């Protein structure tokens, strides 16, 4: 796995959950082992102590009964040596001599009387005397020259001398060491295995969550038909998916209601408007004198303006609720702007205005052509209505940050400072404006419905600037080159 794939894994929740779970698991098993180890060590100690106590009693018996003659040392020594060979699980020591057991008898004055075992026995005696070994209770004894301590049991016999039997703890420690080693190996193995299992199960579970997130992200402003994926199981993740889906159902429902309301409002207003307009037109064709025609003509004009206002208001209302319906197709902004300039240029030059376009060539976006047409027409209408003569409107079109950026600038008086804070709200307009105050709100609504933005500001040098961004068509995306 490369570093690139590892990094996001280490940032994932699955990774963190498995780390903590594994830590808890490792601590738990370690604790269990510590108790187990202690139990085993105590048990081994108890067994060897029992053996030592038994042997030292036997040896004491032998030492008492054996006559104190020249053979005494040999008899007791041999018995002690035999006892040493009985030690269970004993490893043959290096050099063949028996260094795991020693037998020592001191005279009543404390001097070494009899010694069976490896070495001279002097350091053992010294250690015994320094440690004050008590009879009948085995104790640990560290002897100089031996790496491993001895377990020593002692007994006082009737003639006032003491006998000591020592058993090296070497074998006991060896058993415990191998026990620890095996445990560590097994412990590592199960901890790793546990980590793996926890990691992959949580990852699997969370991958459902990830799929839900991806699906939810794909559900955009106008696409409310899709749903997040659900699973057969009835766990928390499945319930999350179900909850999200029922929430989407409700949102889609209220969107639908909003559409129904705006549609029926539009319908209820448009039908009488149609009838009125038709009747006006008929009476216009019947009117012969100019004087009769004049009021009818202005009535028709007013009616058309009212219709346009109605359309824009409903569009803005729907867009504010993120519910504007789009019929997307590919639109070349560059071509559209050229056509629009062609359409508006005569009116502008009539008013003494200049319009210029600076573009990098064709720029395709995925958009509702009719809405984009109306949006651009709105921008141009605004300039045409509000700019004093001898001004210049300059348009710049380019791709920036994976989006189409259209900047419209003029060198006119700019926005009124009192309205510039609320430019995109409905019904906000300058003091001298005769419009409905819907222009910029409509532009903002259309841009937002397409997933774009609009920013309006006054330029430092004077004049207004409106910057519109619109997402590119998928085929224009530089990040996903077309391979055909």
């Amino acid at each position, binding site marked *: 796995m490369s570093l690139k794939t590892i990094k996001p894994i280490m940032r994932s929740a699955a990774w963190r959950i498995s780390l903590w779970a594994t830590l808890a698991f490792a601590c738990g098993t370690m604790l269990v082992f510590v108790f187990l180890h202690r139990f085993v060590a105590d048990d081994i100690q108890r067994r060897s102590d029992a053996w030592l106590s038994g042997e030292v009693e036997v040896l004491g018996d032998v030492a008492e009964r054996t006559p104190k003659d020249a053979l005494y040392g040999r008899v007791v020594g041999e018995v002690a040596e035999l006892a040493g060979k009985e030690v269970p699980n004993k490893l043959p020591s290096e050099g063949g001599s028996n260094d795991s057991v020693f037998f020592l008898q001191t005279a009543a004055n404390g001097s070494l009387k009899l010694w069976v075992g490896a070495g001279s026995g002097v350091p053992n005696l010294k250690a015994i005397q320094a440690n004050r070994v008590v009879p009948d209770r085995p104790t640990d004894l560290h002897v100089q020259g031996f790496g491993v301590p001895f377990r020593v049991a002692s007994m006082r016999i009737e003639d006032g001398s003491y006998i000591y039997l020592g058993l090296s703890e070497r074998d006991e420690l060896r058993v415990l060491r191998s026990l620890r080693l095996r445990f560590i190996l097994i412990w590592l193995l199960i901890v790793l295995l546990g980590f793996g299992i926890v990691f992959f199960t949580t990852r699997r579970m969370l991958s459902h969550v990830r799929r839900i997130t991806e699906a939810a992200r794909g559900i955009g402003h106008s696409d409310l038909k899709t749903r997040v994926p659900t699973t057969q199981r009835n766990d928390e993740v499945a319930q999350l998916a179900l909850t999200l889906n029922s929430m989407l159902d409700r949102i889609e429902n209220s969107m639908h209601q909003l559409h129904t309301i705006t549609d029926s409002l539009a319908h209820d207003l448009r*039908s009488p408007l*149609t009838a009125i307009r038709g009747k006006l037109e008929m009476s216009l064709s019947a009117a012969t004198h100019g004087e009769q*025609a004049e009021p009818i*003509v202005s009535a028709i004009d007013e009616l058309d303006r009212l219709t346009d206002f109605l359309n824009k208001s409903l569009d803005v209302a729907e867009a504010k609720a993120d519910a504007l319906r789009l*019929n997307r197709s590919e639109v070349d902004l560059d071509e559209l702007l050229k056509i629009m300039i062609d*359409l508006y240029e005569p009116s502008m030059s009539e008013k003494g205005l200049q319009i210029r376009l600076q573009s990098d060539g064709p720029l395709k976006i995925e958009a509702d052509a*009719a809405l984009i047409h*109306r949006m651009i027409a709105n921008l141009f209408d605004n300039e045409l209505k509000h700019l004093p003569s001898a001004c210049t409107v300059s348009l710049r079109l380019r791709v920036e940050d994976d989006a189409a950026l259209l900047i419209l600038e003029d060198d006119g008086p700019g926005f009124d400072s009192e309205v510039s804070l609320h430019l995109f709200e409905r019904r906000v307009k300058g003091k001298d404006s005769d*419009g409905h105050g819907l222009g910029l709100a409509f532009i903002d609504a259309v841009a937002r419905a397409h997933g774009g933005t609009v920013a309006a500001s006054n330029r430092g040098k004077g004049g207004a600037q409106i910057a519109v961004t619109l997402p590119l068509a998928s085929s224009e995306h530089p990040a996903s080159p077309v391979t055909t």
Partner: protein
Amino acid sequence: MKLLLVEDEIDIQSFLRSSLEEAGYQVDVAADGRTAERLAIENPHDILIVDLGLPDLDGISLILRLRQLGVRAPVLILSARRSVDDRVRGLEQGGDDYLTKPFALAELLARLRNLLKRNSPPGTEATRLRVLDLELDLLRREASRSGQLLQLTTQEFVLLEFLCRNAGRVVTRSMILDQVWGMRIQPDTNVVDVHIYRLRGKVDGKGQQPLIRTLRGVGYVLKDH
């Protein structure tokens, strides 16, 4: 020309009926889907006008049903809805047309004519258009008046061609925007008027009979007599 008008609003129905009859159509009227279906089958019509919001049946469903029943006449869809839905778009691609309410009568009539022309057997496409002493050469994209070549821009030529093709008939501003610039917008400024003024300046010279007339509140007409 026989026309079937399917519209449930009595006001709209009555004014449409009289203006359509005035324009020379023989008009049958239906106020709901069932009547429309019966009338369409009883006697064939050359063209249909169908409103989308009918009391008993969705306009689109009615059109699709009529198509299944073998009605081939083109349909002009009237819609009071705000957005043009995909099914209307589909019908539009299938040769029908739509118009959103409210509309100018002139535009309705023009769209009807277009539909009828589109559905009639293709005649030989003219390469020259002639209206009084105005002459357009469609191949060379040149216009002349009384033999005098007019200096027109490409856009002005397209605009003049559109007026000539509709000579003697009223064209509205939104028709011009739709046909010449290819967009259904309603600018609240006089952009179309300025184009017409400029064209008129070139076509109607001094001492010549003015051809392009303005009908206030309605649109423009190119005189053909």
